[in-house]
């Protein structure tokens, strides 16, 4: 019974992690940016969804839509106002661009987090789920929302897969991650590809944020942890490798769930951190990373 409980809970959490980390790794793979405001953007999506659907009284569907919209807006802002100016700045030497992007997005993340805390307080908020009720799966009480979370996560990841592998635009994204210069030589506008990638990222982070808000609840204080867990999953799977992050998300999700159920909920994240250190020492490129 406990095994089944772990199996179901772990699956739902892992799917959500996978969705959250996919956007993060996509941005890194295509434009080489580690976006440290990732967690804060997810929090914004969840809190806006909570506010619009609850206090504003627009219902869960409109709320979720508003949350994703807010996340999209944040992602655009991050790219236009922070990442792109730093990348284009002549005053910053090339080898230091990375640390400036990291520091810039980190500060932006803190600003978002503080703004949410100021406008909506830092109490945890649970977004009204899209579907209510529970179902018994072989004797385990499972909320419909948990099933929906897992299904929706996988549907979105599946759509992304189709987009990247089956459409012309998607293939140009893939090409940009392999050889940006070659792509420009073929007549593609690299900057419009980056805009597209940030748009996809905004939608993915937004959906992940809203689902997380409905599943576990979110407060502004979670932003740092969310960024750290996306970062860990992505490094574990191999930076820039989407399939690697999917596997890593399940490793992390199940490891955390098993620790929480079988050992002690308060050390939930410790085995993951230890695993991460071990992987980085032994195989720095991650599970499926290419160097």
């Amino acid at each position, binding site marked *: 019974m406990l095994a089944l409980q772990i199996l179901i809970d772990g699956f739902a959490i892992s799917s959500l992690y996978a969705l959250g980390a996919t956007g993060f790794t996509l941005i890194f793979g295509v434009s080489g940016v*580690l976006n440290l405001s990732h967690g804060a953007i997810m929090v914004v999506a969840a809190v806006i969804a909570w506010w619009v659907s609850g206090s504003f009284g627009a219902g869960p569907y409109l709320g979720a839509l508003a949350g994703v919209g807010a996340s999209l807006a944040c992602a655009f802002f991050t790219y236009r106002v*922070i990442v792109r*100016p*730093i990348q284009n*700045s002549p*005053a*910053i030497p090339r*080898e*230091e661009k*990375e*640390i*400036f992007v*990291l*520091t*810039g997005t*980190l*500060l*932006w993340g*803190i*600003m978002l987090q*503080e*703004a949410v*805390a*100021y406008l909506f307080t830092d109490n945890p908020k649970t977004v009204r789920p899209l579907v209510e009720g529970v179902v018994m799966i072989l004797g385990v009480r499972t909320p419909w929302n948990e099933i929906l979370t897992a299904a929706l996560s996988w549907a979105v990841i599946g759509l992304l897969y189709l987009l990247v592998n089956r459409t012309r635009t998607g293939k140009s994204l893939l090409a940009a991650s392999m050889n940006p210069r070659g792509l420009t030589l073929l007549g593609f506008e690299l900057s419009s590809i980056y805009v597209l990638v940030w748009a996809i990222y905004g939608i993915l982070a937004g959906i992940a944020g809203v689902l997380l808000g409905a599943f576990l609840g979110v407060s502004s204080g979670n932003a*740092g942890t969310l960024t*750290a867990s996306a*970062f*860990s999953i992505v*490094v574990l799977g191999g*930076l820039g490798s989407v399939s690697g992050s999917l596997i890593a998300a399940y490793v992390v999700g199940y490891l955390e769930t098993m620790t929480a159920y079988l050992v002690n909920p*308060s*050390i939930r*994240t*410790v085995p993951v*951190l*230890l695993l*991460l*250190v071990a992987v*980085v*020492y032994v195989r*720095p490129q991650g599970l499926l990373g290419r160097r």
Partner: protein
Amino acid sequence: MFRSRTFLIVLPALLVMALLPLGVGGYILGLLTLAYYYAVFAMSWDLLFGFAGEVNFGPSFLIGVGAYTAALLNHYWMWPIPACLAAGAVAAVIAGAVLAVPALRLTGPYFGLVTLVAVLLLQNVLVLFAGITGGEIGLDLPDVLAIDDTTNYYYALAFMTVSGAILFGLSQSPVGLILQASGQDAIEAAALGFNVAKHKMAAFCISAFFSGLAGGMLIFYLGTASVGTVVDIAVGVNVIIAAVLGGRRTILGAAVGSIFLIGAGEILRPLGQLSTFVVSAVALVVILFFPGGFMGRLLQAGGRE
């Protein structure tokens, strides 16, 4: 010429800082005391980042190891303060050497993540063994540096001046130049016959030594060691912001940035929760428009670089 110019700026500034207790109250002195310890954190971080080229996301790992070693020895075994500080510094150096091992093998984001994980692990351990370490609440210390504000202020000022002089001297010395070369192009530096690994290892140990010592001093000033003041990620983030704000690769800029950061946080206190927002926004604007930071501007105006 650059040296004399720098000294012409630094000496009067130090003189003003030394005479400050004659003019201002204990409240401002307490604030500056905190800022001076942060200045040492930021200067140590700048040695690692600006010169060795290693992005350490977890300065609070080194600070925390030093601080908690000192705190535990003082709390349970009643070691005198100097012995605790020395033990804390040694423990921090060991931690720095442990951190340097992956740094010599990994680059960029991978190393950044290891340093981040180091902080999270330390924080988890401290909270997990809350019975011994005091956990989130913290560990009270039987001894404090001094009760008097002015005495505390002079301790911090003297500590910052000596640490700053050593770190700045080091960065301007031949060793500092080799370190800078290793940070910017490790392969070329090695090709010129410099032992990159040895120099980077040394940078880690020196940075850790001052971070740990400053962490120990800070908790003996505060009279309590807690996760929130010396280990939390937020502490590390502040250190990084201060160093980048003041101007990376200048050492002294890190001190200026710290004093600015603590001062600004206090001036904006009436804004309540929004103060962090405003400080972050200011830091972001500086990074976007003046990537050289405060000191970068100043030194560039002097015709260097």
